[in-house]
């Protein structure tokens, strides 16, 4: 048996507040300020809105839909009369605290729980205060609960997020670009000659169809072609005949450096710092240390007066920031688009010197055609290797694991 609360009794008499609001609006819109003066306004608003009866336009309340027959109002009357109502509406009255169970009924229900050990505490015991007499079972609290599988980040994605965040904190702005590229941007714009062993280390995947891209900026294309064929101000260039058609060939991006080239060609800030975390693709046999698609993290710094000492300073800082390494060394290296070039190594307690990445100062033959006349320090990190190193992963294929148990079990360290 149920009875109305004081609020319930009031609405039985005056009508539900949302109904009263709708009735008032049926005569015309009312300004918000005026409406707020109405009795039980906030309750009325909440339910009238939920029922889709009203809308606010230009600061005035308007009727959006005329209320139909109000079952809830009838339910109020029914409870007052018989102590019962239909299940759905009764539940609504209880949840709106317009009706409550008769105390005798509650007590009767609560008593059923007495005299035996109970597990979960029923609400009737709490409401009636009979919990004082109840015998609550003692649990074995040392047992872990039922296993749940929470939503969470992929462990490696979390690590990459951490890297991005760190670089943004260091003042680098993120660059992004397409995964299907042209040979032009991926290689030519980096002053890698079209027929040269330097491209051996970048064995690319070629797109079957469409083979060639349209719309490489003709001015940049011409400038890059000239740099390859005849060099720039102080350089003799590669001295060969540049193939413009081949420059348009579609390939899958092989290196994140393509994003640096594109950034340089589109009026970057000076001084400026840019980074990217880019998925790249190489024609490689897949094994424990190679994936056909992998991540590269890289970036550039542009400023007047940058020299090799800045490059070395930056690499040493990266070694500390990303690999937490005690011992770091920077050695001469070779990349087709930088001069001087350097590699960064960190000492691992068990594995010895590990190469973390490469860097260098972009060649003039690359910068001049792209319209840049300040030194540019460029760097790249073998982030997959650093990530595996930090997370204790031995097989690079585990980065793309399809084993759901494994994914669920991985800690999110970052």
């Amino acid at each position, binding site marked *: 048996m149920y009875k109305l609360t004081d609020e319930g009794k009031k609405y039985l008499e005056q009508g539900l507040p949302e109904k009263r609001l709708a009735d008032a609006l049926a005569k015309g819109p009312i300004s918000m300020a005026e409406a707020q003066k109405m009795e039980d306004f906030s309750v009325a608003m909440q339910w009238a809105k939920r029922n889709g009866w009203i809308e606010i336009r230009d600061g005035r309340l308007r009727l959006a839909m005329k209320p139909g027959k109000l079952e809830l109002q009838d339910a109020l009357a029914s409870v007052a009369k018989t102590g019962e109502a239909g299940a759905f509406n009764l539940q609504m009255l209880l949840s709106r605290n317009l009706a409550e169970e008769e105390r005798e009924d509650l007590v009767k229900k609560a008593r059923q729980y007495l005299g035996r050990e109970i597990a979960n505490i029923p609400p009737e015991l709490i409401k009636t205060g009979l919990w004082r007499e109840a015998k609550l079972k003692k649990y074995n609290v040392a047992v872990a609960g039922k296993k749940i599988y929470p939503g969470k980040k992929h462990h490696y994605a979390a690590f990459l997020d951490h890297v991005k965040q760190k670089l943004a904190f260091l003042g680098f702005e993120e660059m992004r670009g397409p995964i299907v590229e042209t040979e032009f941007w991926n290689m030519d714009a980096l002053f890698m000659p079209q027929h040269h062993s330097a491209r051996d280390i970048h064995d690319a995947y070629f797109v079957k169809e469409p083979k060639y891209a349209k719309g490489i900026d003709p001015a940049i294309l011409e400038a890059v072609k000239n740099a390859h064929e005849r060099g720039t101000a102080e350089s003799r260039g590669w001295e060969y005949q540049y193939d413009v058609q081949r420059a348009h060939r579609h390939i899958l991006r092989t290196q994140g450096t393509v994003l640096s080239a594109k950034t340089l060609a589109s009026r970057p800030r000076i001084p400026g710092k840019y980074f990217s975390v880019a998925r790249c693709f190489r024609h490689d046999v897949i094994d424990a240390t190679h994936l056909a698609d992998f991540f590269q993290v890289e970036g550039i710094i542009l400023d007047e007066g940058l020299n*090799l000492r800045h490059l070395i300073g930056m690499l040493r800082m990266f070694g500390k920031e990303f690999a937490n390494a005690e011992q770091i060394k920077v050695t001469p290296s070779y990349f087709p688009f930088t001069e001087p070039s350097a590699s960064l190594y960190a000492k691992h307690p068990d594995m010895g010197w590990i190469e973390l990445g490469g860097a260098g100062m972009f060649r003039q033959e690359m910068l001049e055609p792209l319209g840049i006349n300040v030194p540019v320090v460029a760097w790249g990190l073998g982030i997959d290797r650093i990530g595996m190193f930090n997370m204790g992963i031995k097989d690079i294929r585990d980065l793309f694991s399809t084993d759901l148990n494994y994914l669920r079990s991985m800690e999110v360290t970052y």
Partner: protein
Amino acid sequence: MPTIEVSRKMLEKLAGRKIAEGMLDRVKGEIEEENNGTIKLEIGDTNRPDLWSVEGVARVYREKGVPKLKLRKSGKNIIVDKTVETIRPYIAGFIARKVNITEELLLDMIQLQEKIAENFGRKREKISIGIYNYTDAKFPLQYRAVEPLSIKFAPLEFEEEMNLHEILEKHPKGRQYGHIVKKHKLYPIFMDSTGQVLSFPPLINSNRLGRVTKGTSDVFIEATGSDIKPAILAVNIIALALQDRGASIETIEVLYPYATPLGKKIVTPLVFGEKISFPQSLVQERLGLELGADDAISLLRSMQYDAISKGKNITVTIPYYRRDVMHPFDVMEDIAVAYGYGNIQPLEVKSFTPGGFSHFTSLSERARRSMIGMGFQEIMSPILSNATALQEKTLSGEKVIEIENYMSETYSAVRNSVLPSLLNLLGKNLHVEYPHRIFEFGECAVLDNGPKSAAMLAACIADTSVGYEDVSSVVDALLGMLGVKYELKPSKSGSFIDGRQAEIIIGKKPVGIVGEVHPQVLQNWGIGTPVAAFEIDADGLIA
């Protein structure tokens, strides 16, 4: 990067000193392994073929200034015929006397020859090299092109004579490199004055005249190629290596019937004598090092340049065995290498710049957080997939970007959707506790008037009982959290059940799909439970 095998004993004998690992920075070298006195040495510079031999590495530790190549005239000629002009136009050569070919030297020479032809010579396309017993051939030698069927000889390792077509088909080198000549009607051939074949460049030597064995004293070496300077560079490098091993080098004069960038009569080896000048202040500008002219010159000489200073300028002579020095900054690096990277004091970059994320990263961050909040496990998959997975198994008619030179069928196309990656995972985890709630926000590429990269967010719920509303409510909550207004409109994708799928429309544009995955698709992926899924193109969320 080329890896060479060198004997430590020979290396240190030629260098005149012990070589410790820390000293290898000078050649950008790294010891991969050392066994029984043989070092496997990786040379980091793909543009320095002069370093790809024991002689070349040792030279860096021995010489100051440009090493002298002591040349004597042999008075011998190679006569080039007009027929090769459009096929493989250039040749250079020399004679090395009193070589005393030992087993070790023979192996070292073959290694250098192969590294140059493979790495620097673009797998013999640009440069190939032949070594012959000098006394076997009658000079002047002839370099010409002939009809493939008009000539027969026994190639190395074979006793029987073959015509040039047969060599392309039967000889391992013919099969490997035949494509270089196949496009031409005539094939290059190198023979002596009596018409005896020495070799069929760039494929194979003759078994009779093109054989060098232990105990040979005088050898003749030639390089043919598509560009003249790299071909001469190759013979310069090999000549100097042989001189380092005690040979005396004699030049050969090559006579062309057509013009070349270096004239019609070229004596090889050729000491190019190229010079490059720069202001002394460039050292400070590029390297940040305060060096006097004398210091700079001494460092340069230790890297085998000749250098003089005049006024405020320094002029260096580039060694005739290098073609990688094309800008003064190339010389700067060598100064820094000689100075030692480890001795350079680091400087901090002082400029202040505002850091930040791309729109994509910011959006992906918010969307992923919402999905995780709704109990989804993030997954990460390769972008490379295949047409079977993307089109057939998923019953989608969409065209995909395929790879021409794929390495394995499994990775032969770029995914145009993330959904197949998720279905693939679900099909592999049938015995893992349900429900499976997974999502990925990943890169794809679609064909849309040319290839276009796209980022897609897709999610799946797999459970013994799951339906349309379970996932449409996720879409509703997700787009609500992202503050995007959307509509659902019944759709007709083959991947989903008819009547239980809808297009997600944002601002009048269809940007995604939500629904119950078609049972045929589930079967194709080996999934045993119903799956409700959605996929949204991130571009649609940014707009």
